[in-house]
């Protein structure tokens, strides 16, 4: 009996707890990834779909895609979009987290209200922003009223401003996500540290740089990496606001993959684009894991 108990060491118990999640992941995450990978090495499109035997074509789909300018355009767009959104979301989210960490009346309810932009279904946010960014939308009207512009800006019509518009919309959506995670991190920093720093005569800038930032490092890491991955996966916002247009100015890997698979029926190529995106995000995820490990060693 003692032996049996020993077998049930914490390791085994731990694995048992992880087992349901593991099975779930294998079935609902592992299987689709593998079958998607297999699909991308075959030739399945509108003409070959009904063939009984799926022809194995190796890397042909990937090579053909690399020849298409749209792939590099959408890859670059995704990267630019994610990077720009993360920078602004993080800075603004951090600022708000610091603000609401101060004790002032209504701080908590106001922080709660800010969550709304994260809670609204993205389709609705996208529609609202589409209206606001139209030629005679509220943004152009406001800018005209303030005499900043005299001719309305072609927000969603011009390739550069269209990208800017969906970035602005996405930043607005993402700020609360950053704010809440960082707020939680801030609340875990014990007050005594700040008090002793006060006694040592540290100024507020010094306290921020040498106490807040280092203590928040784990939270900051996870916010940045998770935020980056979430942002790379953007789909509905783009689909509703611009459909990837004008021309291909806002085409993302996700919308391109969707268009290939479900609009043009080029299932294998759509799968290949999805895999390219997966590999890219996988590398970033590995980097994140490594960061966490380093932190734990410290």
């Amino acid at each position: 009996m003692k032996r049996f108990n020993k077998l049930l060491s914490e390791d085994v118990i731990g694995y048992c707890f992880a087992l349901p999640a593991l099975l779930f992941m294998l079935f609902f995450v592992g299987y689709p990834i593998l079958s998607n990978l297999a699909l991308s090495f075959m030739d399945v499109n509108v003409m070959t779909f009904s063939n009984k035997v799926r022809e194995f074509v190796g890397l042909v789909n990937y090579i053909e895609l690399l020849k298409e300018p749209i792939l590099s355009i959408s890859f670059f767009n995704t990267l630019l979009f994610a990077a720009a959104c993360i920078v602004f979301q993080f800075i603004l989210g951090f600022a708000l987290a610091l603000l609401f960490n101060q004790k002032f009346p209504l701080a908590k309810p106001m922080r709660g209200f800010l969550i709304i932009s994260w809670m609204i279904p993205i389709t609705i946010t996208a529609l609202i922003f589409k209206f606001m960014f139209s030629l005679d939308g509220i943004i152009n009207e406001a800018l005209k009223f303030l005499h900043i512009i005299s001719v309305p800006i072609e927000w969603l019509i011009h390739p550069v401003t269209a990208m800017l518009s969906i970035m602005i919309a996405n930043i607005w959506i993402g700020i609360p996500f950053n704010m809440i995670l960082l707020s939680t991190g801030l609340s875990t920093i014990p007050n005594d540290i700040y008090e002793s720093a006060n006694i040592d005569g540290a100024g507020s800038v010094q306290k921020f740089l040498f106490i807040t930032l280092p203590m928040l490092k784990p939270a900051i890491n996870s916010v940045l990496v998770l935020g980056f991955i979430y942002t790379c996966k953007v789909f509905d916002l783009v689909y509703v606001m611009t459909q990837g247009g004008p021309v291909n100015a806002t085409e993302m890997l996700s919308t391109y993959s969707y268009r290939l698979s479900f609009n043009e029926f080029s299932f294998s190529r759509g799968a290949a684009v999805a895999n390219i995106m997966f590999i890219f995000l996988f590398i970033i995820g590995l980097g994140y894991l490594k960061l966490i490990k380093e932190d734990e060693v410290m």
Partner: protein
Amino acid sequence: MKKSISLLLVLFLIFGFLAGCGQSTDNSSSAGTNKNEQTDSGKDDTSAAKTKIAFWYYWDGKNQQEYVTELTQKFNESQNEVEMVSQYVPFADYKKQLSIGLAASNLPDVAVIDNPDHASYAAMGLFADINDRLRDWADKEQYFPGPMKSATYDGKTYGIPMTSNCLALFYNEEMLTKAGATPPETWDELREAAAKLTGNGTTGFAFSAVKGEEGVFGFIPFLLSTGATVDSPGSPEAVKSFDFLLGLVEDGSMSKEVINWTQADVLKQFMAGKVAMMLNGPWQIPLLEQDAPDLKWNVAKIPKDKDFTSVLGGENIGIVNGNNVDSAVKFLKYMGSAEVVRETAVKLGMFPPRKDVAADKIWTDDPVMKVFMDEMQYAQPRGPHPKWPEISNTLSTSLQEVLTGVKAPQAAAKDAQASVDKIKE
């Protein structure tokens, strides 16, 4: 002891999870059957022997869905061999659901399909070839050739057209009178009238040039009117159509924003008096009458360059390959009967694809309907080609390139030709 308890808990968790899993899959797969049971209750005993078949459609709106329910009910009562169950699938998800269903063998027996997609799905093996089964069906002769062609692929019949529609020019009568313009018949007249009507926050003309099929739908009448075809977007004729549309934008007579406007958006602009003339379809008329009852509007044929043209829209119904093809053909013939075609066209704000039904007073006596019926003669189907979606994407991209000024018409046309040639290889 504590540990054994926790082990027990873990086991419960695992089984709970597995059981939960099993249940959820059960639920999803029986969603359809539940519906069957509902329709069954209240029926006599013979229904047990009926073959059950499922019908997918995407006509949205409460009235439309009530109409389909009524239609299937009538069919189920009219005979005692087949029991039809209808299911609504939203249009935005429709193609995706069919493709997924095709991969997972989870499909209806009869499906409504947007006519430019019919050939693609036929090529993918979704639809059954019913050439032989329709051979002795006399009603087949009544169909207009254009719509019928959209249901064929490689010389075989994969379904029948159910409803048809096309685009025409809507114009704001008051604005035209005020500006001293008459409904334009040619491109030159259109350009001139549009310029006259522009001003005070109103643009003269608009059509949906949004990215995707909807924008291509509006562009095709312009492309074909010059004598170009969808296979020759690089021809001088095609360049002319790009030039013309760009000219409208450069004149200020058409807002650049049309590249983001769906047909519904264009309608809203027209109703708000911000657009004086627009290309749109007959399905907008009920909305126009309901939301802008004071607006005085009329329709005319789409102005021409060389020939009058329009683009054929509408839905076909196809029978899905499977065990129930024979039962499904019975439903198909019912849907294709003159009475049902007539009723459906009226209820959905569309046009009948049958000659005998189209001769009905509803379409010949009403001045607005008459214009659309006239336009139907010139309406060209898109494709039918299994790779139509790719061709359509190419046309959509070049249209957007031209209207936003990213590429000059000549260059955009040349690139479009290269893509189309590659697709057709």
